[in-house]
Structures are given as structure tokens and as C-alpha cells.
């Protein structure tokens, strides 16, 4: 439970961070809630740990009809963030409240969770349902990408080795919208056996699942049960694919029902 020897450097600004990440096998660390445990198990053994926790990029703000979440925003920040009080955005704080424990929530960051791409992590499902896109920076410059296009598979993203998330952007749902997150957790890890985020707007409904596939994903429009029946859903020794598929349907229905209720209160 002692990590292999590694170097450490604290980045002073974004460009410095990107420069440090040029080192082969360097890893960025923000809250460390995913990286440190795997380093202690020596599953990850980076040559250099680049501390990006002092780069700012933290906080939640509304600008020009969009919601901006800094990637270094912690789960605790999200729970308390004022712009997230709307029923339309209720899924974010609801989801954050269920992550880890207080200590994890005080350190773990939303950007770290997205970049880590754990197939059972909760928040990416919420961000997917809300249609989030990511602002990215690398030495080659800035670009943006839909979250759905960044999550490629288990612990695998479209981010380059020297690329960092600089902003998470969500289009503000129109008035009369509601969102919700529901999950059934593994009793030990707390990770979702099946989790569902739902957004209900006057224009339509979106449901995203997590914990059931290689990455969180948005269900195609149409009948929920049919979409889930057609989805690729895996089984493991705790929850079979049959059981997990049923759980996915249950949590999707529950999240959607709550989202619809909340939409009625979104003025």
C-alpha cells in the first residue's frame, strides 16, 4: 500500500501543466481520489505526478445561456453551488451527494471523474443527459468535444496524453425542465450497478445510463424498455447481465419519473 517511487511537480499555470505532462508516463492529479488508490496498489506507477490542483478552473457559473463547471470543482462545491438550485439541474447535486463520503467529496473533482472514465462513475451519466461538452487544451491548442465523443471505453478517453479538460459546458435547459439521478449501488464499493440520469424538457426527454456498459451512454430516443432491451449490457459475478438490465430499466424509470415531477416546479 505504498506507491512505487515517483516524482512530483506542482503546476503553476495551465501552460506549465501541459509542459510537465510532456514527460513520458506523467499523470495529472487533481483531487487524487482515483489516482492515489491505484498508485497505492501499484496498478498505476507514473514517473511523474503533475499536481494541477492549484490551476483555478474551479466553480460553477452561468454565462450566455450556458452553465460552466470548472473541472477542478469538487463534489462538495457542486452540492452547494447556487446556479444548480433549479429543478432542471437538480440531478447534478443529487448525484454529487451520493458520491463517496465527505472526505472524498471534499477532494474529488468533476473533471477528474470525467477524465478517469470509470464505466460505473455516476456524474458522467448526469452530464451526458444534460448534453455536456468539454473544453480541452493541449500544446497543440484549444478544442471542444461532446462528452459522449470523449468517453471511449473503460478508463479510456479521447483526451491526448498532454491534454487537459479546462471547462465543462452545459446548455441551460429551457423553463419547465427537470432532471434526476437514480441508482442501485454495489453494497461495498458504492459504485452504480446501474445508474440513470434523466432530463425532461418540454421539447423531449433524455436518459443516460452508467454502470451497465463499457462507458456511460445516452439511450436512443423512444420506448425506454425497448431501448434498454437493445442496449449492450454486461454481467459480472455480483450482478448478471439479466439482473443488471432489469436494474437499468428500474432506475431509468425512477429517474425519469422524478425528472418529470421536477419539471412541473421549474419556473
Amino acid at each position, binding site marked *: *500500500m*505504498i506507491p512505487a517511487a515517483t516524482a512530483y511537480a506542482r503546476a503553476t499555470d495551465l501552460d506549465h501543466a501541459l509542459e510537465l505532462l510532456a514527460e513520458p508516463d506523467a499523470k495529472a492529479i487533481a483531487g487524487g481520489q482515483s489516482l492515489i488508490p491505484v498508485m497505492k496498489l501499484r496498478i498505476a506507477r507514473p514517473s511523474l505526478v503533475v499536481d494541477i490542483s492549484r490551476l483555478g478552473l474551479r466553480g460553477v457559473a452561468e454565462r450566455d445561456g450556458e452553465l460552466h463547471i470548472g473541472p477542478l470543482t469538487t463534489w462538495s462545491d457542486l452540492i452547494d453551488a447556487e446556479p444548480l438550485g433549479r429543478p432542471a439541474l437538480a440531478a447534478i447535486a443529487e448525484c454529487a451527494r451520493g458520491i463517496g463520503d465527505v472526505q472524498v467529496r471534499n477532494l474529488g473533482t468533476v473533471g477528474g471523474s470525467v477524465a478517469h472514465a470509470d464505466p460505473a462513475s455516476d456524474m458522467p451519466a448526469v452530464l451526458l443527459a444534460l448534453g455536456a461538452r468539454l473544453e480541452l487544451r493541449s500544446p497543440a491548442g484549444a478544442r471542444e468535444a461532446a462528452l459522449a465523443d470523449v468517453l471511449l471505453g473503460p478508463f479510456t478517453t479521447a483526451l491526448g496524453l498532454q491534454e487537459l479538460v479546462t471547462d465543462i459546458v452545459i446548455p441551460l435547459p429551457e423553463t419547465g425542465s427537470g432532471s434526476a439521478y437514480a441508482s442501485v449501488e454495489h453494497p*461495498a*464499493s458504492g459504485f452504480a450497478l446501474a445508474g440513470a440520469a434523466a432530463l425532461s424538457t418540454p421539447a423531449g426527454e433524455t436518459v443516460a445510463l452508467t454502470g451497465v456498459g463499457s462507458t456511460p451512454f445516452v439511450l436512443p430516443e423512444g420506448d425506454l424498455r425497448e431501448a434498454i432491451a437493445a442496449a449492450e449490457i454486461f454481467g459480472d*459475478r455480483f*450482478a*448478471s447481465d439479466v*439482473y443488471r438490465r*432489469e436494474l437499468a430499466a428500474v432506475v431509468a424509470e425512477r429517474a425519469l419519473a422524478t425528472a418529470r415531477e421536477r419539471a412541473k416546479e421549474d419556473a
Partner: protein
Amino acid sequence: MTDTTLIGVARPRVDAPDKVTGATRFAADGYVHGLLHARPVLATEAHARIRGVDKDAALATPGVVAVLLAADLPIASTGTDRTAEPLAREEVVFAGQPVALIVGETEAAAEDGAEALVVDYEPLEAVVDVEAAMEPGAALARTVEDAEEDGGDLESIHAGVDHGQEDDPREELSGNVLDRITRENGDVTAALAGSDAVVEGTFRTPWVYQAYLEPQVCTAWLEPSGTLVVSTSTQGSFVTRGELARAFDLPLERIRVIAEPLGGAFGGKFALVEPLAAGAALALHRPVRLVLTRSEDFQATNPASAQVTRLKIGARADGTFTGIEGRMIVDRGSNAGWGVEGITSALVAGPYRWAAHDIRGYGVQTNRFPFGAYRAPGAPTAAFALESLLDELAQKLGLDPIEMRLHNAVVEGDLAITGSPYPTIGAIEVLERIREHSLWAARESLPDGEGIGMALGHWPGGNEPAAAVCRVDTDGTMTVVTSAADMSGVNTGFAVIAAAAFGLSPDKVRVVTADTSSGPYAGASGGSKVTYTVGKAVLRAAESAREKVLNAASQELEIAPDDLEVVDGVVRAVGAPDRSITVEELAKKALRFGGRYEPIEGHGGSAQTMGAPSVAAHLSHVRVDRETGEVRLLRHVIAQDVGRALNPALVEGQMRGGATQGMGWALFEQLDHDEDGRLLTGSFLDYAIPTAERVPEIETLIVEVPAPDGPFGAKGIGEAPVVGAPAAIANAVAAAAGTRLYELPMTAPRVWAALRS
């Protein structure tokens, strides 16, 4: 003569302030000059022969001082138990078995070295399925014979039950079956045939981890004189000393074992890591500390065995129990020394009268971790089977489950299936308490998906002679000295026993846990016997000290000792309290050059022969989510016969803790191996325990049926509260779901599957 007003008052634990403020020094905390750190290398195969070990890379790792294999430890014993073979010699018998110790100047160096060690295994067939392992001709889980066949002192310290009758010679079983227990009386077949209702089932329970907060840890060093000093997290200092003497063939006086404050043990801390740390210290002549990581602790220690129980019971129409027939298979894993088949086959009959019984227990070796004790070993799993079937029996006969149990519950003088008569036992009293509870009445008017269940569980307790010393100092305070490891708050109990017996405020009493070099004898803290037996010795030691203080006061006050009393540290004339002298003054007169009185000090011993079983009845209220299979615990009530609650706060803590661990058995806990015998649940990310958000309000009902031979009527209470909890929850789930589960834990996928079968 004693001040019984002090008994039965809720008080904080004496060790609480230090533990809460972080002042307690645990076995991993003490500073030792020149300390080396050990890291074990654990076997990656469940069954294998070690072809060779390449030490070079590990030895070349900076900071690594030594790479120790079995042959490098000065082990004198040829046995194959964990004491005699702390590192695998030639045959690995479970994945996680330590095969080498890497000793480094720092923890990090030792870990780097452990990573670099190369062990060459020749895999052998892993025996993982306990039932298949019993078949004649099955592959053997261990091919090297145990030369000693001696489990040391570890076998008999847990519970006061015998070892059954002669084995049935007709049964043909494989060499993996290390022990057979037969308990037979009367004609069970006829009894069941003549019953108005018969129910049966096969019940399965998994390997369960003790999940103590503090992992296994030990520090060992040699004094310049050559004495081996072992500072460790253990339940028994004398047991550990005996085990180390056996392992290294050292005289007892050359070993000093210090039982440091325990960070939880629950039956799992008996000389498991001490032979490793001590062996390394003896080999290297430097102090060595071994602290298992959590994942090593999961893999390399000694959890509770899995069990398979086939049980069949019958009753007449009026609810009178007729016959009980059971076959209990205990997966001992790689523990060749002992198993719980003796205990579980005795307890499966419950605290009930049976006209006839035929119970067989089998202890079977497999290539899993060596089984160890866990709070009431063998009992929760026995009660799960019996109490589940009792509910089915009551349902079949149209009887109230509590009334039916009351009709058959034992009282003093009834014979247990071991043939021994029950001493005082509160089975009827605790059943009556939960029958009166409003939650029981509420079971008929519940919302859909909710259910209420009840069950009874008991633990026989144990006996072991013990001694204690009480010493009064010149400041009027008392020091109680015992060698019992302070587990489950026993020291706080000793303080109030000594205070009440002597006549002193409990806050003037300090309790010290002595080491084996100077402490009075006490057995291991286990078997629910410490308060009962060591507490009795403390009582007598305090009474003896009281005699000394009365004699001194008698001379000072010129009043006969019989006319004096000791109240709150003051010796005074009965009926004339103004004629008095303080204990402090008397101690000052005694403890000085030229003093006139014997030191106010007493020694006391105990050797009870009468047992003091404790019984607990549980009520569980659950909600089953029919869509997901999740079980939510809504409320839990436990009524336990504790003899006499010396300190109700501690007693309730034990009741809550036991019930909570029972919730773990019921819903969450399961150590799983793959088909090759490798552990799949080696961390708290995989292994679920009952966390605060899942544990409901637990209501505690203290029932007091005094134990005739216990201190102030107290009995051992630590184990009974876990026993019936899983069964009560299983009965509640059956009521809520309309279908019964025969396997623990009742996880969401299992409940969901049962709802659809």
C-alpha cells in the same frame, strides 16, 4: 457488604478518552530503536509446490535487509499449522499464504523488495468445493502430512462444548474430512415419522471476515539478555506465549508477550502474525515490525468458515418438538488443527428440548484460508438454519412462532444435546420480552413489501481459571491488574466490579493489562468468558484488599472489622459514620518505611465449573424492494439475558455491535474465491460490511437472569447477540417477500432471483 449501588449504572468506557483523542498507542505505534519493517510475500496459487525462490532481485533492492523463507526462520516445530509453519515450507495450501518475508529499513523498501521476489510454483489441483472434497477419491488439499496433528492451545479456548460421540464407521469419506462429530440420542426417524409436521432445508453460509478496524500487527525484538519481547495486537498474551514457545522451542521465561490495546479482534487475533515477526527478529537479531495491509489481512488471515447445513425437524400439532436431524459441513479451509464442527453441531439444536436427535458435523479441509474464530464461531450459521425452519414449522402448524418456541424453550436442568444439563438460562424470559414488544404486534398490519421476523440465538459461554490483583496506592486510588486483553470493554467492567466489591468510586480505579512476565494468569479474551471468570477473580482480589483495609482501620479506630464498612473510599463504623478514616490515610500509614499495616492489596482467583449461557431474541423489520431485490433494514429490537448488566452502556454496546455484525451476515458479507481458489473479494471495494447508513435504529432490551457463579450475577454477553440476528432478518425477509432464502448473504441479486423463481 459490597456497594451494589455502583452496579448497573451506565458509565463511559475507561479507555474511551484516549481512543477518541488518539492518545492510545496501538501495537503499530510504539517507537522502537533500530526497527526493521517486514512485508510478506503471499502465495498467488491456492495449491502448489514451491519449486524455487529467486531472492537476488529482492535482495538487491535498496534498503532491503533480508529475504526470509521458511528455512531461514528458527522454527523448531514440524507441524503444519500457522504457528509451526508461518511461512510455507514446500507446499502452498491457500492463495494468500505467506511464503516469504522481506525485511527492509523502511516500509517502502520492504514493499519494493516484495515486488521483486520471484517464486516458482508448480500448481497442484486446488480443492475449492467443500462438498466434492468429501467424496472418496477426491484430490487432497494437503499432500504433506502433519507430523504433529496438534492445534496447540487454540482449539479449546472458544466455547464450552464437548467433542461428541464415536464416529459412524459406515461412512466412507475422503482424507479431506479431518473430523467427524456424531451427536445422537433416541430414534430420530421414528420421531420424525410420528410428527404432525416436518420441514427441511439446506442452508449455506459463506466465509466471513472479522473486519476489525486495526489489521493484524506485531512488533518483536530481543532484549540484550536474549528474552524475546513481542508487542502485539492479540486476544491472548499467555496463549501467544505458548504458541511462540512451541514454534521456536524457547523456554516460557525467555518470552514476554505484551497485549497492546486492541483495535478490534472479534476472534481473529490468535498468534497469526507473531510467529512471523518473532521469527524474523530471532533470525536477524534486530527489532522487526509486521503490519498487514488491509488487502493482505483479507487474503492471509483466518476468517469464519463457510458452512453447509442440511436440517430436518418435526413437531406435533401442539408445537412440541419431536426430532432434529442435521448434517453440517464445515469448510475449515487449510486449518488442519481444529474446526467449528464441534460447536456448530451442538448449537444447531438451539436452546430447545428435542425428543430425539441425530446431528453429524464434518470438518473438511480445502485450499482456502485457514478458518479462524469469529464472534460466536459456528453459531450464527446454526441458528440461521434452525430458526428459519422453526418459522416454517410454525406456519405449517398454524402456530404463533414465539408461542411455539416458548413451548419448547429449555429451562435450568433440561439436557442440551451434548448431554449436559443447562444451568440458569433466560430463553423464556427474552422470548417473553419480544412477544410483548409493539413491533411484534405490528406485523399483521404492514404495508406491502415490508415484513417482521424474529429468532432466538444462544451462546454457551466458557470457563477458564483466572487471577487478578488489586492494589491501593497512597493517593487512595486502586489499580487492578489482570492479563486479560481489553476486548469489548472488559476493563471498564473490572473497574466497577473492583469498586463495588471494595467500596470505592469507580473513577478511582485504574485497570492495567499486564504482560506475561508479571501479570496474574488469564486466558484469552474470547468465548464470552472474561467478565464472568476474570471478573470473578477481580471481585475476590478486591474483597481481599478490602479485608486488609478493614484490618488496618480496625486497629486505627479500635472497632472490630465486622462493625466497619467501606463507602466511597472511607472506612467508617456501621451506624456511626462520623467514626471514620479514609482509605487514603490508611494506605499512607501502610506504604512507608516503618509502616504498621500490610499493603492494601489483594489477590483473587476463580475457577468456575458452572457455565453461564446467554440468550438473545431478535425482532427485525425490513422492506424488500420487489423491483431491485434490495433489502432495507428499518428497525431492529434485541432482548438479551445478560445475567446482570454491570454497566448498561457497555452491555447495550455489545448488543448493538452483535446485532450489527449479524446484519452483515444476513445481507452483505461474503468472501468469494474463483474456481482456482484465488480470493475475489480482497478489499472493502468488493467486500461489503454494514455501514452506518444501512444500519437501522437498534432497540436494546436488557433482561437480567443472574448467573449464580458470576460476579454480581453477570455473564459473558459478547457473543450471544450476533447469533440470532441473521435468522431474524431472514425470517423478516421471508415475511416481506413471500419467499424464503436459504443462503446468506441475502444480496439484492439473490432476493431478486428468489422473487422470480
